[in-house]
């Protein structure tokens, strides 16, 4: 206990170093800019900025990525409130009440509520991150080779199943990623496998694949659509604040949404887009002023925003402890972790504990930066959200090129990134799952080593894969993972329907922005 407390304290001291503070501010600002631009997503932003973290210390790099993640989730609410277009799907529910408030000349109040609730949602989610992560990480100490094989499959079934329209297509995407992960030298015997050139000796570069699948593919998605002028962001003159009474009103809503968002975040596969609707619905159910819902309720904005930001801390728990990211953004974050040479699991809370606790402390401080930058820069960010796709297309392309080149300073990296960009575009057009491919590229080698080592130890006897209780638990979890989309889809549909009932909103319009 004392050890943990001293690690937490040391983490805060490290996180408070000038470079970390500077990076937090830059990351949050960058995240808010990405989040408030409809068409760009949090995953895309984190993927795009991943190469910038290579030369940084592991903790600083992770803090930057965490800051972009939190900033982007909050940033989505700015365009949701001011132009009725959620910057990210996580802010779809915010648009319902937020825009109504804007129409009534209360945009400042709506933005303050969003920022304030996001801050508390994110900050409270750090509590579970601090306390559940080490416990869950200890569990993985029981894992042997066979268990790692099943764990890699479990991670895939979860992300492939939940974030795809069709479960089978999601699983097909995961299997395709696993197959692609076998390109390169055999990790055990060193035999060349499926290698057109020696460039692929270390396998397909995960970062290039990430940038291609999440960022470059988005450029192609933007390029295929007619360039439309974005709605003008409403200029607002009301004060960005809440009265003491209003703060008291939204307090229980924030706490409820924090619990909801946190639980949703911890559940692998469920994400911020589900949490925002659940948070919104719960605030509606418990509100003493139900008549205000659909007409600009601050409780509605608070419920949605606290829930989607509470997801951030929660979703890091399975990512850091089990190596199972629940959604696209955390899959990219995990890529960042692995690129730094770190493996999710008990090592992060043992050998690398100082780094992990610095990251956690940074994650806490990021919430304060989000509050400060969000409140001070709302007016400016609102104007940025109008940036046309015609400007975004070349800018994102150039950043994708530079980002992928920066890794090894090799033109081939750009070729791989571009190829994955085209693949990602086609996959998204045909409802395949790009996040599953990325995760499979990361988990593939872990699964392969697990399978090969287990079989080597048992002289090729496949029964070793079913020999322990943990193996069976993971197999059952795989089955649940495959079946969970049926439940999750129903939950999301129900929450969305309940949220828009009586508000006159068009659900398709609110969720039409194509984001990964």
């Amino acid at each position, binding site marked *: 206990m004392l050890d943990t407390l001293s690690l937490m304290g040391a983490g805060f001291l490290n996180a408070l170093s000038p470079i970390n503070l500077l990076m937090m501010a830059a990351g949050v600002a960058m995240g808010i800019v990405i989040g408030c631009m409809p068409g760009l997503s949090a995953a895309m932003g984190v993927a795009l900025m991943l190469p*910038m973290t*290579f*030369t940084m210390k592991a903790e600083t790099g992770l803090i930057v990525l965490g800051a972009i993640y939190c900033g982007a989730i909050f940033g989505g609410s700015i365009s949701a409130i001011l132009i009725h277009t959620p910057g990210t799907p996580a802010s779809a529910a915010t648009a319902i009440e937020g825009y109504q408030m804007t129409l009534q000349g209360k945009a400042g109040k709506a933005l303050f509520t969003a920022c304030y609730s996001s801050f508390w949602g994110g900050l409270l989610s750090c509590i579970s991150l601090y306390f559940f992560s080490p416990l869950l990480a200890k569990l993985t100490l029981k894992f042997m080779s066979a268990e790692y094989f099943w764990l890699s499959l479990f991670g895939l079934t979860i992300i492939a199943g939940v974030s795809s329209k*069709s479960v*089978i*297509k999601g*699983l*097909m995407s995961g*299997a*395709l990623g*696993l*197959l692609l*992960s*076998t390109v390169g030298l*055999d990790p*055990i*015997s060193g*035999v060349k*496998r*499926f290698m057109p050139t020696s460039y692929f000796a270390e396998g397909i570069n995960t970062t290039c694949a990430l940038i291609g699948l999440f960022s470059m593919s988005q*450029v*192609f998605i933007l*390029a*295929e*659509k*007619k*360039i439309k002028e974005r709605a003008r962001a409403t200029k607002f003159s009301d004060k960005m604040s809440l009265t003491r009474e209003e703060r008291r009103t939204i307090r229980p809503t924030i706490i409820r949404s924090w619990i909801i968002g946190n639980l949703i975040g911890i559940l692998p596969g469920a994400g911020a887009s589900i949490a925002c609707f659940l948070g919104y619905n719960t605030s509606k159910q418990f509100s003493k002023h139900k008549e205000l819902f659909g007409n600009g309720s601050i409780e509605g904005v608070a419920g949605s925003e606290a829930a989607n930001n509470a997801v951030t801390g929660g979703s890091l728990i399975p990512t850091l402890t089990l190596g199972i990211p629940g959604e696209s953004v955390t899959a990219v974050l995990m890529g960042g972790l692995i690129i730094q040479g770190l493996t999710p699991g008990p090592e992060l809370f043992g050998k690398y504990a100082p780094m992990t606790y610095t990251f956690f402390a940074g994650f806490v401080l990021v919430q304060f930066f989000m509050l400060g930058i969000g409140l001070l820069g709302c007016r400016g960010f609102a104007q940025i959200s109008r940036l*046309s*796709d*015609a*400007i975004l*297309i*070349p*800018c994102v*392309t*150039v*950043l994708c*090129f*530079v980002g992928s*080149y*920066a890794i090894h*300073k090799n*033109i081939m990296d*750009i*070729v791989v990134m*571009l190829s994955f960009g*085209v693949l990602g575009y086609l996959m998204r*057009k*045909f409802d*395949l799952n790009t996040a599953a491919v990325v995760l499979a590229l990361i988990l*593939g080698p872990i*699964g*392969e080593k697990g*399978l*090969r080592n287990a*079989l080597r130890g048992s002289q090729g006897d496949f029964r070793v894969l079913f020999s322990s209780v943990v193996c069976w638990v993971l197999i059952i979890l795989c089955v649940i993972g495959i079946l969970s989309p049926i439940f999750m889809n129903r939950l999301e549909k129900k929450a969305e329907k309940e949220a828009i009932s009586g508000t006159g909103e068009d659900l398709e319009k609110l969720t039409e922005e194509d984001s990964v």
Partner: protein
Amino acid sequence: MKMKKTDIGVVLFMYFVCGFFYYHMVKLKASSQTYPRFTIVLLFGLTTLYLIQMVIAAKKYGVESGVDSVFKDFQTAQFFVCLCATVLYLICIHLFGFYIPTVIFMAAIMLYLKVPPLYICITIVVIIALIYFAFQKFLGVKLPVGTIMKALNK
């Protein structure tokens, strides 16, 4: 839900990937085949399962093209201009280095997409400055010099 004809392409692509990897896998040492074989069987099995699902959907609900929904509001010329320009940009970076092709690429794309000239200039200056200071100065990334430029400098 009706079966989409476009999904036939998805199934064929997956079978092609399986075939391609299988063809190369059989040439490998037996021990190196284990995991690729497992993933090929997995992908093949899932694709076949999807094919069965498609056939059932076709019999139950009928068949639709799928092209309309997949390529709704598709701006053919705009898309291919952007795609070709991106490929050309890659080739030019390799030949002429980073900065000149980047300025030309950005200006060309934005002019084509009818961005006002003032915005084009501001965007280019901002992006070039960002790359120069963030990547080149701060992170120490050496950007491509270009094979032709390198030869000329020699």
